[in-house]
């Protein structure tokens, strides 16, 4: 067995903690001193450092940021559209309910509820329109074949 610490043990997993800066100052000093005197641990330390550096520089994903940005935009479109459809469907249901109610009673005054219903209806329509418009603009910007005439 090669050189070891005073306690007769190699530093083992503390090497990783040392490389990663996760040890206390005292433990880091102990590992540093040990590696200066223990060839085996010194070599392992260098190997682990080198591997860590290689991993840090490795290309483990070929998908760029644009992919994730588009994914997020797509998600936003879906969420906006969902809210739009919810408002739209809710407004339709309330409108139908209101019409039925209005037919059955003699009260024809414009109440706050009516204004909310109309607001929800038009709000839903507007959101749907903006959602579609936004998607079309993004597609137009990123479409490689937009200038190609058919």
């Amino acid at each position: 067995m090669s050189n070891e610490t005073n306690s007769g043990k190699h530093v083992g997993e503390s090497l990783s903690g040392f490389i990663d800066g996760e040890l206390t100052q005292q433990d880091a000093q102990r590992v540093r001193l040990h590696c200066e005197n223990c060839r085996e641990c010194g070599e392992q330390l260098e190997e682990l450092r080198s591997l860590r550096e290689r991993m840090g520089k490795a290309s483990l994903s070929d998908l760029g940021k644009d992919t994730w940005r588009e994914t997020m935009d797509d998600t936003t479109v879906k969420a906006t559209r969902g809210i739009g459809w919810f408002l739209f469907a809710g407004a339709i249901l309330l409108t139908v309910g209101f019409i039925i109610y209005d037919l059955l009673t003699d009260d024809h005054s414009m109440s706050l509820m009516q204004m909310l219903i109309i607001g929800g209806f038009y709000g839903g329509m507007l959101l749907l329109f903006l959602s579609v418009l936004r998607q079309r603009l993004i597609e137009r910007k990123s479409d490689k074949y937009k200038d190609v005439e058919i």
Partner: protein
Amino acid sequence: MRQELVQLGGGAHALAIQILGNPDDAADAVHDSLATALERQHMYDARKGPLKPWFLRMVRNRCIDLLRKRKPTDDRVDELPAAGKSPEKAAEDADRDRILKSALESLDSDQRQIIVLRDYMDLSYAQIAEVLDIAPGTVMSRLHRSRVALGKAYREYDE
């Protein structure tokens, strides 16, 4: 938050590849996780910690869900994608990545994940414990064993 999530996409994809074994399934998992993160962004509390471990844990959980639904197959990594750089540098990097890929493939999924989280995504031990849902005290020993295994495999493939 959106910009930060975009930045995390590549690393999350690398992690998902280690769990699911192929880039396409991994991209789907990250896509789903981005959608979930946006839906649940009100649940993220920046005072409790950075976004990175919060999002990566979500990605890992999504991958595990997909693995459960998938029929039992070999979970080895199909292929690590090639780098897109200048020809000479790309060749050198590709060669290095090829050896690293082979070495990584020889490890089990848990070992690959912890190495990617630390050495590729630069997470602290506390953050790794949060993502992997393990005791913080076990991260150093688990990571060290994984690195030693990777080093051994790398030497074998480099010969």
